[in-house]
């Protein structure tokens, strides 16, 4: 803090909604780390937009020298994942290490085979990949004294499209109160000229993209099985997010949404997913709050419960 300043000559100068969100997220990461006694942070970079945004926020909050990223490709990772992550890390001047997880996947397959009577398949195999990555991240964070940042968004936390003791690992869920559509909006803003002032303010490169078109434009995928896309198991994000917002922020019931013209199948399914993942959210890292209702102490839902709309 400097000397007392006279009144701002232009007091009504307002920040755009994106600039405010960005500034709040940077402050949230910065203060959580500082006040908990961490100087350094770690995150996993998948090549997707969520971890890219969290990486940019971590660098803005703590400085590029204090942030490290782990790249953990599997046989299901697209070729772009690794390249896009490395390019992002280089734009952010971020140190990375690459730890392919295939040998560990094979080791788990072999060890579990006798117990399961077969190799792990389906969701079990998908979650194992996420948990292998989560374990690697925790090992590095332990060893180097870093704060591990979880990179899941609000849409995923809402429908349970996330793995406990896997990608949900971490001390802080940085963007857990941003719907996927909002993640897209904020990252596009970050790469636009409108963000120049905020980028400069927190020491990010002033020119050129931070996130980059390759990451901005790729279809969302968890890459846990061949050619998987989020759209295989979830409605398109703009639609999903609109329904979630009605359920979460506006306290709507499935019946009300169906009566207002939303298709019954989608409404019932999303409602079921939302309720069935309560146990995951109860075990999630603290979520930086940005909205009128974020997961955490402003969302107090029972876990073992049934309401009329149970499918």
């Amino acid at each position, binding site marked *: *803090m400097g000397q007392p300043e006279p*009144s*701002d000559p232009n*007091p009504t100068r307002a920040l755009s909604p994106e600039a405010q969100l960005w500034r709040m997220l940077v402050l949230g990461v910065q*203060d*959580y780390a500082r*006040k908990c006694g961490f100087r350094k942070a770690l995150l996993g970079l998948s090549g997707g937009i969520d971890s890219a945004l969290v990486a940019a926020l971590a660098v803005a909050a703590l400085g590029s020298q204090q942030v490290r990223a782990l790249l953990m490709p599997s046989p299901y990772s697209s070729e772009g994942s690794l390249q896009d992550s490395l390019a992002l890390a280089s734009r952010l001047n971020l140190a990375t290490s690459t730890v392919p997880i295939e040998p560990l996947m094979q080791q788990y397959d072999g060890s579990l085979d006798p117990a399961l009577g077969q190799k792990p398949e389906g969701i079990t195999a998908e979650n194992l990949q996420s948990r292998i990555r989560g374990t690697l991240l925790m090992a590095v964070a332990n060893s180097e004294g870093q704060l591990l940042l979880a990179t899941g968004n609000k849409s995923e936390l809402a429908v349970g499209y996330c793995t406990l003791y896997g990608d949900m690992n971490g001390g802080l869920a940085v963007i857990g109160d941003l719907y996927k559509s909002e993640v897209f909006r904020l990252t596009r803003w970050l790469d636009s000229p409108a963000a120049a002032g905020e980028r400069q303010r927190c020491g990010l490169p002033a020119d050129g993209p931070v996130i980059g078109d390759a990451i901005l434009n790729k279809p969302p995928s968890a890459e846990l099985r061949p050619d998987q896309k989020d759209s295989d198991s979830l409605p398109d994000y703009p639609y999903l997010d609109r329904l979630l917002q009605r359920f979460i922020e506006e306290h709507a019931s499935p019946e009300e949404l169906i009566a207002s013209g939303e298709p019954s199948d989608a409404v019932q399914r999303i409602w079921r997913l939302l309720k069935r993942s309560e146990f995951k959210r109860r075990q999630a890292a603290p979520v930086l*709050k*940005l909205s009128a209702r974020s997961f955490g102490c402003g969302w107090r839902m029972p876990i073992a419960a049934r309401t009329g709309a149970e499918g």
Partner: protein
Amino acid sequence: MRIALIQSNPLVGDLQGNRQRLQQQCLQAAEAGAELALAPELALWGYPPRDLLLQPALRQQQDRQLDQLSGALPPGFGLLLGVVETSGQKLFNAMALVERGGWRLVARKRLLPSYDVFDEQRYFHSGDQPALLSWGGQRLGLTLCEDLWVEPKISGRNAPLCDPIAELQPLKPDLLINLSASPFGQGKAERRRQLAGAAQQRLGCPVLYVNQVGGNDELIFDGNSFVLDATGALQQQLPCGESALQIWDSQSPATPTPPEP
């Protein structure tokens, strides 16, 4: 009167560290000629202190820190800040005036938010009267955070249990002071200014709004403290997301300039 607005970023529970930082800012404000300084709600604790409030030892430590602070302030200088008041078995979310040689409680929060992330009824009892403090020749109307959120049309909330602003009207304050710890929300900075504007219209006096800044666990406080002048115009705006200390001069006496003959 020259008043300093201290938009501080406390570390929750660090009563001594927060007191030391606040003390430094007060000295800085005094050097700049301020007679009065304003710090946020529960400024020594950091908001929200949650169940730390339940530890008697910490509340006693708060009082010792206030003693220390009063020993360090220059003569003639006053600091208004949010504190915890312990009264028998009851706690109040309160406001204290600290001056050289002593401190005293001057207000109790009327409206205790207990929705969304707020849990104040878990800890506090409500004050039952409006607070007016005569200090430095001025009548200061004192409110804490939620006490300003009395306009359902602006706040989007239910009508409050009482209306602390209406109750201040007959007391004719020269200035309205609101010490807050109000977390970020989209569009919320604008809403706070509108609520202050509504209070300004009802009281006909300037409004000084001082908010906490910084991240505390999942909550992020945006600061964005401000002053509305006696006409309701935004006269001073503190930054979004940064600690700040700014000086504001009231016209003294706080009456409109008489028209030219």
